[in-house]
């Protein structure tokens, strides 16, 4: 069942034991820290570039002075329309891309550690499908975009709760049961979404649901950014604080107990935090796949399997990745390309790469 694509801690430890160079562990740590710093720099660069790129002409100097104007009043060299576009369209979109990318990647990394399964992504417990069902129902009811987001968020949490309650009653390998229950409940809601699509009015509702399922940051508003930010901060903060304990989770419950960590409690907290940020992401952007699966793996290649470095690296790389992909989504054509499609274009080939690479090991 368990696919070992990357070296686990134990393997690494064994190899290090064979090696005769003790400083290699700290050297790896130092290198990993350098990678994290480099990722942060890369993200900062991507943010600056993204803020300057757009289909509406805003000169770099104007963008900079508009931003500076928030702190120190500047003589306006920009038009009102430019300011409206910059603050209502471009800025919220860049912020949302960063936040959602960060959340999906770190949730994916956390789930992968918790379930000791490298093929797990943030929607493993049904959060995405639950949210999709909530959104589809809200669209059919004509609730408007706020109602759609609210119902999507609520249904995402409800679905994960349902999965956990079901698996709590089941016997056998607990982690296996949780994943199985997640898959089953997901497919239940997937059927619900299909039915919603069947009865939807094709001229708008059906297209609306379809775009929602493909995910996009198209309609990003500052109000949405402000609403999901506290939830995301709480969830990401919790995962960041627990990153050392997630390391221990990957070693198994008994090992954790000998180190004085209550694996069960940690696992629950990690699942709750990761679910919260997944739900918060999905409810405003729709379904964006692959980020949560691919980014943690990329980061593992860069900084190794140690969650103390993997968590911050995933956050930074996830944010940068989604920002850059979204730049393509909004810049490539005059219409938008749903970002869920673009992430899958990158994600699927990478997944195949991982599978073929495994054979060689």
């Amino acid at each position, binding site marked *: 069942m368990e696919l070992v694509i990357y*070296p686990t801690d134990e393997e690494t430890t064994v*190899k290090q034991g064979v*090696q005769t*160079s003790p400083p*290699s562990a700290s050297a790896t740590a130092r290198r990993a820290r350098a*990678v994290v710093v480099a990722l942060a720099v*890369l993200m900062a660069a*991507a943010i600056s*570039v993204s803020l300057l*790129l*757009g*289909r*509406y*002409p805003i000169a770099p100097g104007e963008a900079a002075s508009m931003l500076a104007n928030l702190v120190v009043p500047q003589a306006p060299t920009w038009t009102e329309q430019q300011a*409206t*576009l910059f603050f*209502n*369209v*471009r800025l919220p979109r860049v912020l949302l891309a960063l936040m959602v990318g960060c959340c999906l990647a770190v949730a994916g990394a956390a789930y992968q550690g918790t379930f000791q399964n490298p093929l797990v992504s943030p929607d493993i417990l049904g959060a995405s499908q639950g949210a999709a069902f909530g*959104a589809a129902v809200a*669209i059919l*009811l*004509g*609730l*408007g*975009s706020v109602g759609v987001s609210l119902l999507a968020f609520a249904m995402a949490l409800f679905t994960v709760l349902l999965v956990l309650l079901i698996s709590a009653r089941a016997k056998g390998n607990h982690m296996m049961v949780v994943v199985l229950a997640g898959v089953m409940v997901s497919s239940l809601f997937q059927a619900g979404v299909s039915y919603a699509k*069947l009865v939807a*009015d*094709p*001229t*708008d509702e059906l*297209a*609306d649901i379809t*775009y*929602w399922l*493909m*995910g*996009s940051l*198209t*309609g990003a*508003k500052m109000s949405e950014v402000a609403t999901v930010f506290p939830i995301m901060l709480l969830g990401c903060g919790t995962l960041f604080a627990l990153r050392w304990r997630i390391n221990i989770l990957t070693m198994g419950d008994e090992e954790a107990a000998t180190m004085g960590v209550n694996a069960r409690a940690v696992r629950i907290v990690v699942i709750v935090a990761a679910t919260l940020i997944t739900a918060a992401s999905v409810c405003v952007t729709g379904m964006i796949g692959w980020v949560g699966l691919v980014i943690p793996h*990329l980061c593992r*290649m*860069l900084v*190794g399997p140690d969650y103390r470095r993997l968590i911050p690296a995933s956050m930074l790389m996830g944010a*940068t*990745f989604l920002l*850059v*992909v979204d*730049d*393509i989504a*909004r*810049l*490539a*054509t*005059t*219409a*938008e390309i*749903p970002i869920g499609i673009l992430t899958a274009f*990158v994600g699927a080939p990478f997944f195949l790469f991982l599978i073929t690479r495994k054979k060689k090991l």
Partner: protein
Amino acid sequence: MRMALEKKLRRAGALLAAAALALCLAVGAGGCAGGGDADAGGAAVAAGAAAEQDAGAAAADGAGGASADAGTYEFTDDLGRTVTLPTTIEAICPSGFTAQQVLLTIAPEKMVGLAQELNAEQLKIFGEAFADYPAFGAVLGAKDDLNREAVAAAAPQVIIDTGEAKKGAKEDLDALQEQLGIPVVFIEAKLSDYGAAYERLGEMLGVQERGAELAAYCRDAYQTTEDAMAGIPADQRVKMAYLLGENGLNAIAKTSFQGAVMDMVADNVVMVDDVSGKGNGNEISLEQIALWNPELIIFQSGSIYNTVGDDPAWAGIAAIDSGNYYQVPNDPYCWMNNPPTVNQLMGLQWLPRLLYPDAFDDSIEDVTRAYYQTMYRYDLSDQELADLLQDAVRK
């Protein structure tokens, strides 16, 4: 050794990731630059519109030093939203596919972009110039593919949505308007009274004459069909079916949103429990069609019209045996639906004349010419008319 190999692998991974990100950035920047060129046409149009606007404002100033506010007024749209609009509107943008069709008929010269690119046949009707127009995508509600910045860059003075009022539309249009700083209005347009929509649009866009012309045409066409149908009782209406799909096994069911024209003039034999409002209708079986046994069938373009006559599976169905089956013309838009908007008005005139030729004084050829002339300002040549109607009239 293995350690070194692992390090190498990791380094390769890092390089790969960095390269991928760099590539993404480059593609993004390239897309931006390329898009900039493609937009030149749209931008030029917008600049032209802006120049005209300035000229208008200057004229107003000269006349009496009017304040800046004199250039705007409060407009109440069909969702009851009050929107501040410029008095003179020279640049407009459709919110989606149906609005695009409506605007192409009333004020194509004011459009700064499209929701969806036009195909070759549509370009022939509406003008090759539209080939260079940017396509922005459509506004839908919770999620859509409308590129906000691209729309704003084309600088429309108003974004226009048409169709039937939907729940939640008010909130969505308000949100879009606030985000872009560009007025967004909704004009109701429905089969029974496209005239009202054209009058409203004519007034708003300062093309009252064109609006009145289209309104009169739409009302007259609708009324003529309505009057003729009043003389044909329900039990004498033709039992028909509208089939589509690559096997001809999808049908627009009775009472479907897509089949409003059929319900008005014929007896649609396709009655199903869960009527689909989708453009591709309900899936049905050939046995069921045989059971219904329609006297007349119309096929959508792209279906089996050309092969059905020789298909033994379809032999025995009255419409096919008697050769009483036709193909719905598809240029510039399908005459029946897909999406159902002002194009339905052509179907509304064609279908009853096909079913009951004696109930009308004029021919299908007459109304087709008039429709293209009035709605699209396009004069069909004799050859074009013949091509269009090739499979759509009784032989």
